């Protein structure tokens, strides 16, 4: 039995269930709100610094330097700030505005902010339903009594899911660019962005830092976001196999993701938390040189941790789905 018709079936079901339209609708409502907020902030800064971004950057550096002298600021926070200051100085020396308002910069920032929670939630909305939905509606009985091996059915669902995850990320980028471009202008593709920061405790190794154009940077972000999307998708897929009700499956995944964003903010002293998948989702921070929440985390480490989680989820999904008795 060929897989293509099975994948076609799953694709049709996802589209006809209108899950994907809901995701597009969420993007179309939320992105303009963020864009507006960004625009207000840009206007504010322009008034304050009379349109000179160098003054703005210098002010940010000074503010952070001042706080380094204070005893009330915890040592961990100071580490972050020192790194931030070094980066900003680097931008200043090279005469590049890291926050120049345009459609491309907005998209870049949006991806940074959405990789660990927003995109995973959108992915969960599709993935959580993909197997448990068939069980909730009882259609699994029709699906599994056809002369097709169960692993093929599950694989076709997985492939369809990965296709939709890709589509979600592409649509996010396009919607962000089109809407924010209408406010800030559509330029900015060739603005250089620095990447390749290597973090050692409180120091930044600048020797590997190099500039890439904004569009190259966005491509790298998309790759990392896609990877996070697929990992979260596969985990939600496993939960969907294990849990019979779609609602329970969505709630389980949401709880895990939100727990991750809480842990990220307080896990610095609990070292082994770095092996949890939800702490490792902020992959784009490695590009921009933002310090990782727990010592010892870097891009290869996070990629390996996420891959292992996804691999385990896949093995469990396939073992359970092909062996389990359908009793309800």
């Amino acid at each position, binding site marked *: 039995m060929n897989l293509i018709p099975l994948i076609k079936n799953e694709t049709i*079901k996802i589209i006809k269930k209108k899950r994907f339209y809901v995701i597009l609708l969420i993007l179309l409502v939320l992105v303009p709100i963020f864009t507006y907020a960004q625009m207000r902030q840009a206007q504010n800064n322009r008034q304050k610094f009379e349109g000179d971004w160098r003054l703005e950057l210098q002010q940010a550096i000074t503010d952070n330097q001042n706080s380094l002298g204070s005893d009330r600021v915890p040592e961990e926070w100071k580490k972050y700030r020192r790194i931030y200051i070094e980066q900003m100085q680097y931008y200043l020396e090279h005469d590049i505005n890291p926050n120049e308002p345009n459609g491309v910069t907005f998209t870049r920032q949006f991806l940074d902010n959405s990789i660990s929670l927003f995109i995973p939630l959108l992915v969960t909305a599709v993935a959580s339903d993909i197997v448990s939905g068939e069980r909730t509606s009882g259609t699994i009985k029709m699906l599994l009594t056809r002369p097709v091996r169960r692993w093929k059915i599950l694989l076709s669902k997985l492939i369809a899911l990965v296709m939709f995850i890709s589509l979600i990320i592409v649509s996010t980028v396009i919607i962000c660019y089109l809407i924010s471009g209408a406010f800030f202008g559509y330029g900015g593709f060739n603005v250089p962005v620095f990447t390749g920061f290597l973090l050692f405790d409180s120091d930044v190794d600048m020797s590997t830092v190099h500039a890439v154009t904004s569009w190259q940077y966005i491509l790298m972000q998309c790759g990392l976001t896609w990877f996070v999307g697929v990992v979260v998708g596969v985990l939600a897929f496993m939960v969907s196999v294990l849990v019979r009700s779609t609602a329970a499956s969505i709630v389980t995944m949401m709880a895990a993701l939100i727990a991750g964003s809480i842990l990220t903010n307080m896990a610095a002293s609990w070292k082994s938390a770095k092996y949890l998948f939800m702490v490792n989702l902020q992959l784009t921070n490695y590009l921009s040189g933002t310090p990782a929440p727990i010592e010892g985390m870097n891009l290869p480490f996070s990629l390996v941790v996420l891959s292992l989680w996804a691999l385990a989820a896949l093995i469990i999904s396939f073992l359970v789905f092909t062996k389990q008795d359908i009793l309800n």
Partner: protein
Amino acid sequence: MISTNEEIVLSVEHIKKKIGKRWIIDDVTFDIRAGEIFGFLGPNGAGKTTTIRMLVDLIKPTDGVIKVCGYDVNRDPERGLKYVGSIVENPEMYTYLTGFENLEHFARMQPGITKARIEEVVETVRLTERIHDKVSTYSLGMRQRLGIAQALLGRPKLLILDEPTNGLDPKGIKEMRAFIKQLASSGMAVFVSSHLLSEIQLLCDRVAIISGGKVLAVGNVNDLIAESSNYIIWDFTPRQLGLQILASNTEVMIVRNVESVLDDSVIANMNKDAVVVQMPETAVPAAVAELTSAGVSVKSVQKVTPTLEQLFLRMTEGEAIDESHSAY
């Protein structure tokens, strides 16, 4: 009548299923031949649905072999299930798709089903007018017919229907029976489960009676019923005198707890003064003559079949019936 030379389509050999510590199905064996309508009769909780789920590979038997056209359904579902069309419990289809889209979906899961074949089965179940409407707008009867259309798509040699007349109105029930008979006359083997003896009596050639996970008897429907006790409903005036005469007849046993012996549908149609007795058919003419000569006017004498429970009592000599209820 079905000749015993017909090909065996389904052979079930000593299947057992253990769930937790209980044997839900304990050594069930039967064969079904081409062109035969085979009834599977038992109260709710007797193991009918569990057995059906094993026939279509939704549940793996703990022990035993199920073969369809010679292929082991549980080990080689790709070949075994090719010859099976089934509806397990309710005909649950994708409600957000149209009837036609549902059929296309299942057609894609099996090679060689053309669009012309889909249209043919739609014609067969007489859904042509509504086939392009969403399934969510269908009545239960229409869903049942769509379910059958789905089951017929792959030109099965064995059709499995779980309580096919459940929830249908009297007209729908009659149509369904006629339809099943027509399918069987075209050479298909049809497996029908039911908890109603009358249903099986009207439809099936042979029957397996199951209770508490065990097959109590397999055989010709009418033979099995004839073996069990016959009940006679008498309606006469004056009631008191007639009752005295019957009570003095040694061949007659007056039934006191009518509700537990006869079907509700029979009781509803009974005159409330009627007398229910258990007696051999051959003794009826003499009893009528005796009553008439004593001045009792006999308005009606009616022979009724006992309920399924009565049949069980007879077969198990009154031991297994409670067990089959607690199994629910």
